[in-house]
C-alpha cells in the first residue's frame, strides 16, 4: 500500500475530487495547509505597515491505496490540478505498512477500498 499526498491550489479541489471519484476512489482526507515555494504571495498594506505573505493557502489531499492504483491516481491528480502556472503543487508517494478500517477491523487493501 502507498499513501499519495498531493499539495494543490485550493480552487482546484472540487475538480480533483470529481476526477478521483470518476476513477473510483472512494476515500480521501483533506487538510488546509500553507505552502512556501516559488510562487509569490500577495502584499497587504495596513496604513503605513506592509506585509508580504509568503505562505500561500494550499490543500493537501491524502489517499491511501493499493500499489497498483498509484499511477492512475497520480496521473489523474496531475491532469485535474494543473493550471500550468507556478504554485500548482506537488505529489508525493510514501510507503504504508498497514491500514485498518476502524468500524470493521478490516485490514490492508480492504480497509481502503
Amino acid at each position, binding site marked *: 500500500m502507498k499513501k499519495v499526498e498531493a499539495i494543490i491550489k485550493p480552487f482546484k479541489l472540487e475538480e480533483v475530487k470529481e476526477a478521483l471519484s470518476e476513477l473510483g476512489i472512494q476515500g480521501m482526507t483533506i487538510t488546509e495547509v500553507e505552502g512556501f515555494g516559488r510562487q509569490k504571495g500577495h502584499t497587504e498594506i*495596513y*496604513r503605513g505597515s506592509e*506585509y508580504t505573505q509568503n505562505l500561500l493557502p494550499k490543500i493537501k489531499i491524502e489517499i491511501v491505496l493499493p500499489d497498483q492504483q498509484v499511477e492512475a491516481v497520480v496521473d489523474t491528480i496531475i491532469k485535474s490540478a494543473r493550471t500550468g502556472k507556478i504554485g500548482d503543487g506537488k505529489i508525493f508517494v510514501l510507503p504504508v505498512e498497514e491500514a485498518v478500517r476502524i468500524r470493521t477491523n478490516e485490514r490492508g487493501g480492504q480497509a481502503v477500498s
Partner: protein
Amino acid sequence: MKLRNQVLVLLAAAWTAAAAFANESSALKEPTVVERLADIEAYINNGARTPDVASKVAGPGPGHNGWLMTSAALVLFMTLPGLALFYGGLVRRKNVLSVLAQCLGIAGLVTILWWAVGYSLVFAPGTPVLGGLKFAFLQGVDGSPNTDYSAWVSHNVFAMFQLMFAIITPALIIGAIAERMKYSAVLLFIGIWMFVVYFPLAHMVWGIDGLMNGAWNANAKIKAIDFAGGTVVHMSSGWSALILCLIVGRRLGYGKTIMAPHSMVLCMVGTAMLWFGWYGFNAGSALGADAVAANAFMTTTLAAAIASVTWGAAEWIFKGKPSVLGLCSGVVAGLVVVTPACGFVTATGAVIIGLLAGFIPFLACVKLKPLLGYDDALDTFGVHAVGGTLGALLTGFLATHEANPNLAINLKDVVGNTLWLHQLGAIGVTLVLATVGTALIALVVKLVVGLRPSPEDETVGLDLVYHGEEGYIFE
C-alpha cells in the same frame, strides 16, 4: 410606570416648589400668563428661562432632555462596543480580549472617579484651572437643570453625558500601546491620568469659570472654543498616546513579524458604531435638540463622509488600492477633526474640514510614522493628536456667527479675527499638559507595577496571560 391623571397636578407643583427651593430664591412670585408663555417658548428655543418667577415648568424640557439621554447613550456606545471593536479588530487575535478588557475596565474605573469627585472637579465652580467639590458624590446633581450649562436638560443627565466623554478619552490612548502593556499598569496609568490631565483640562475648556472657555466665560484668559472636545478629548488622548508609546517601547517583533489586523470586519463595525455614536457626541454637545445641534449634525455627517473618500482616494493614488482600513480611518479622522468645530462652522466649513481631515492624518499615519519609527500600534497619535490639533486650529479660522449665534455673546470681536491665536494658545496648554503629565505618570507606574509583560507573556498574548481567556474557540 408613571402616570395617573388626578395626582400629577400636585406633583408638578411639587417640582416647581423643589426647583424654586433649589434656585435659592425662597419667595419667587407667581408668573403672569405672558411670563408662563415666555418660559415655554424658552423651552422650545432652548433659551434662558424667565427670571425671578416660580416657573411652572421648573424641571427639564422633554425634547432637550430626551435628546441628551439619547446622546449620552450614543456616546457610551462609542466606547462600548464601538471603540472596543475598532481597536479590537486591529490587533492580533491573541490580544483582542485585552483591548476589550481595557475598554470595560476604563469605563468602570472612570465612572467611579466621576461619581466621587471627577464630575465636580470639572463642572463645579472653582478656580480657572480646576472645579470645586460642590458636586462630589453627585450631591445635588438631580433632575432639575443646572442653568450654568443648560436651562432645559436635567443636571444628572448632563453629568452622565459628560461622563461618557470622560470614559472614551482615556480609552483612546490604549490604541497606541495595544498588545504590550500590563492590565494593571493600564488601569493605574489611566486612574492617575484622569486627575493630572483630564479633569483640569476639561474644566479649563468647559467649566463655567474655566481658563480657556471662551464661549461662556467672559473672563477667560484664553478665548478659545472647543465645541465637543478637540482639545479635551482628542488632543489630550492623542499626545498622551505618543509619549506613552515611546516610553513603553515597541512591540516584540515590530517590523519583522506580521502584525496585521486580525479582523477588519470588526474594525469596520467599530468604525460605523463610532460614526453613529458621534452624533450624540457632537450634536449632543449642543445640550439640546435645537438649531445648533442640527447644524452640528450636518457638519459631522459631511466631514466624516468627505474625509473617508479623501483618505480612500489618497490610498488609491499613492498605494494603488483603497482599503477598508483607509476608508474607516478617513471616517474617524473626519469625525475627530470636525469635533471642536461642528457647532461653529457651516456646511462649507465642514467640507473643507473633511478634505483636510482625510489627507493630513493620512500623511501622519502612512508617511510620518514609518519615518520616525515609533510604534503607535493603532495610530492614536496619527489620527487623534494630529487630527485634534488640526481641528482646533481650523476651528479658529472657520468658526462663524452664521453657524452659531452664541459666538456673538462673548466672542464677537474674536471670531473671524484673532480667534485662531487663542486656539493656538489652547493647543499649547493642552499639548504641554498632556505630554508632560503622561511622561511623569508613566514613570511612576513603571516604578510601581511595571509597564510591560515579560517577552514570553507578550508572545503568548495578553488574553491568556492577563484574563485567562481566548477571543475565539472555533474548533
